[in-house]
């Protein structure tokens, strides 16, 4: 006999116990995922106290991703002017502008900056930079806003009458590594007197630059490395300028104008000017961050001081716990035993939603979602209201939840508000079910019949009611700004999970505790038995 057949032969109660076991495992997994740090601390202390006799396996901790308004930091929105860039090059220009800003921000020492390009409606492109935990925002804004332009120039054909002798620079070639050392020609013709013209080579072709020290005299110098395309252009330029100077301009200022002795292949060069270590370092940073291929201007910023952020976390936590407490009290006082069951479901609900907010490893996300969707299908099949539409609905919800479980949901103030609101809304399905169960009880049904009918009859309303809120959430997610998006996302996840907790978990708990003892104590469900026998509460009562 296969496992499935054996399971099918079990009594209703025995099946419910098995399902309950699965739910308990599920609950343990989500609780451990959410409280991974607490668990690790606890197991550490336990091991210390018992002289490492009891050693619990550690869990890899996953942390929540907190938004800027909770950790403090700044969000800068730049508009990118792509007016002068041909349509076909815009995407790549914006992408490289994004990279440049990211490099500049990295140089500033911000951990995990987020820089992204947004196509805004009708008004062109925006580049958004989110810098968490940054202290000196003003300096960061300056750093990002600066547009150092690195250019390589050659002598224009029409020079003013030469005022000095041709360059006598010393250029050495190390053919082995194709590294060329160019030494500025300060003794020769003053570079400022030369009329320069642009070459195709710009900072765009620079792969990277590093600070190094001249092995001979220990002076700091800056090594440049071009990408393949840049190396080719550099070779062309040096070929046609043998015996002539080539100048390196940064932000329109000449920083070096060495003379080329022979064509340089391999795409590597060294600028050895009269640098101090500090100057060379700065130059490397600026060269690496490169020039912005697109002019940008700051159009919006949102800055939150770190202490305000931690205050917000404390406030939200307090509001969440008080909200949970109020809703739980209300449910227990009003619905008694079923209310208590719904509070148990609500607790598992809370931990499940919080677990989905974290970036879960794929196997864990898969297990959680498969258990949830599987149990939903099982419960609806058990209630005999399973059909294709329902399967499709939960398949879609399951896939969306899976996607959200894989990536971190950035928690912002509005996102947490969405979560707290969803605690209040999560009991909606239970309220519908319990109200229906009471009605059925009053019509004289037994408790187990009434519970069964309550779940069955309440489902169309639960579905119609929640689907419209889910649709609204999806619209908020797709059309909103980041605040609105955060709220829509957490509310969406919350309501989706509530369908699982309020129906599957509550139903299973109900089936497990149902029995003769409960039939005699209908006051636990808020209905007096005497009334249940009377018919006066039945149909028409005007």
């Amino acid at each position: 006999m296969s496992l499935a057949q054996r399971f099918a032969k079990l009594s209703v109660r025995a099946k419910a116990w098995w399902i309950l076991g699965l739910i308990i495992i599920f609950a343990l997994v989500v609780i451990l995922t959410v409280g991974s740090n607490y668990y690790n601390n606890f197991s550490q202390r336990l091991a210390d106290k018992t002289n490492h006799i009891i050693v619990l396996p550690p869990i890899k901790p996953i942390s929540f991703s907190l938004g800027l308004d909770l950790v403090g930091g700044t969000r800068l929105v730049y508009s990118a002017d792509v007016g002068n860039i041909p349509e076909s090059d815009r995407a790549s220009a914006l992408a490289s502008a994004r990279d440049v800003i990211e490099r500049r921000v990295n140089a500033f020492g911000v951990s995990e900056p987020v820089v992204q390009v947004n196509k805004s409606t009708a008004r062109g492109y925006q580049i958004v930079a989110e810098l968490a935990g940054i202290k000196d925002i003003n300096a960061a804004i300056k750093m990002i806003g600066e547009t150092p332009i690195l250019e390589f120039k050659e002598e224009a054909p029409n020079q003013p009458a030469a005022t000095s002798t041709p360059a006598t620079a010393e250029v050495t070639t190390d053919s082995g590594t194709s590294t060329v050392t160019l030494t500025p020609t300060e003794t020769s013709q003053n570079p400022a007197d030369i009329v320069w013209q642009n070459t195709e080579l710009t900072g765009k072709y620079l792969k990277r630059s590093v600070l190094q020290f001249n092995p001979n005299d220990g002076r700091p110098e800056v090594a440049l490395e071009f990408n393949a395309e840049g190396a080719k252009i550099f070779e062309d330029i040096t070929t046609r300028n043998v015996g002539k100077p080539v100048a390196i301009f940064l932000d329109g200022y000449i920083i070096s104008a060495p003379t080329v002795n022979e064509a340089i292949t391999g795409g590597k060069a060294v600028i050895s000017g009269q640098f101090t270590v500090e100057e060379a370092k700065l130059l490397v940073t600026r060269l690496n961050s490169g020039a912005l291929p697109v002019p940008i201007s700051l159009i919006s910023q949102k800055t939150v001081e770190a202490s305000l952020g931690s205050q917000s976390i404390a406030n939200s936590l307090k509001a969440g716990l008080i909200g949970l407490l109020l809703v739980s009290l209300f449910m227990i006082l009003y619905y008694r035993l079923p209310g208590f069951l719904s509070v148990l479901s609500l607790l598992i609900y809370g931990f499940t939603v919080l677990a989905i907010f974290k970036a879960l490893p794929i196997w864990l996300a898969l297990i959680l979602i498969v258990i949830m969707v599987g149990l939903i299908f099982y419960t609806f099949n058990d209630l005999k209201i399973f059909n294709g539409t329902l399967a499709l609905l939960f398949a879609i919800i399951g896939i969306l939840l899976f996607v959200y479980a894989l990536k971190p949901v950035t928690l912002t103030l509005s996102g947490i508000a969405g979560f707290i609101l969803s605690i209040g809304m999560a009991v909606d399905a239970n309220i519908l079910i319990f109200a229906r169960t009471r009605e059925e009880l009053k019509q004289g049904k037994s408790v187990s019949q009434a519970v069964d009918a309550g779940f069955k009859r309440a489902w169309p309303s639960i579905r119609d009611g929640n689907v419209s809120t889910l649709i609204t959430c999806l619209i908020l997610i797709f059309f909103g700004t980041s605040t609105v998006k955060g709220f829509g996302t957490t509310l969406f996840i919350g309501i989706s999970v509530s369908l699982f907790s309020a129906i599957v978990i509550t139903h299973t708990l109900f089936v497990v505790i149902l029995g003769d003892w409960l039939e005699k104590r209908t006051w636990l469900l808020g209905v007096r038995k005497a009334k249940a026998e009377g018919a006066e509460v039945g149909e028409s009562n005007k």
Partner: protein
Amino acid sequence: MIYRIIQKRKIFLTLSTLALAAAVLALIFWGLNFGIDFTGGSSLEVQFTNYQPTIAEIQDSLKSADLHNLVIQPTSNSYILKFKEDSETAHQAAVGDLAALAAAHDGASFKELQFDSVGPSIGQELKSKSFNATVIVFIMIIVYISLAFRKVSKPVASWKYGLAAIIALVHDLLFILGVFALLGHVFKVEINTPFIAAVLTVLGYSVSDTIIVFDRIRENLPKSQEDFENTVNRSLNQTLTRSINTSFSAILALLAILFFGGSTIKDFALALAVGIFIGTYSSIFIASPVLVIWDKLAHRAKA
């Protein structure tokens, strides 16, 4: 016991008409107090310790920064400054002046808690985005209701359920806007993007509330021996407890945010709470009575 809600519909419809008239007047005369998300400009929250300057002192200290439309609002432990300029230069000038104000007093210190700036182009964009989202929510709701009620045709056509739900939605929308026009006028409460999220959520919530009542009507109609009016009234009574309890639990959660969640999120929670309250009211006292009135009008036309 059964509440005669439908029978007393005139009371509720009159109440709502009066409330909506007041809301429209408030919107016309006071308008909505749009925040910087929509108008563009800056909002700066600062905190002084060991020294609480008066508003006039802050104003004086900011003279050199030359900020336009400067508004200073004291909160329990900070000051919120709003001004028209959105540039970083204006921001730094203001912060510099305020730091100088604190430095002029012994032992006082100054901290910038929060700064938001929105350029006019972004404000424009947010406006159009919000408008689009609202329109799409309305369209989706109409589509959803007409799908959900496509099988109901007697005695009221299915599209009339949809239209009744939309009337309730417009009722809710006007009411919230009216309340916030009043709050904006009296308490300087501003409309920013979170408010739009709150309104859209309330629209979704209100329609789900209405759908649950309509679902019950749909379920009762085929087996009912009463006329349409009484069937609707009985359905309303059957769903009444649920409607109130669901809203009550959602409002409990929102009250927790309102009182303990901090000042930043207060207006948002308030908009949601007001909206959920009125959404529940309209699904009970507006949407279903409208259905019944429609049915009566149709009968009168036939007669």
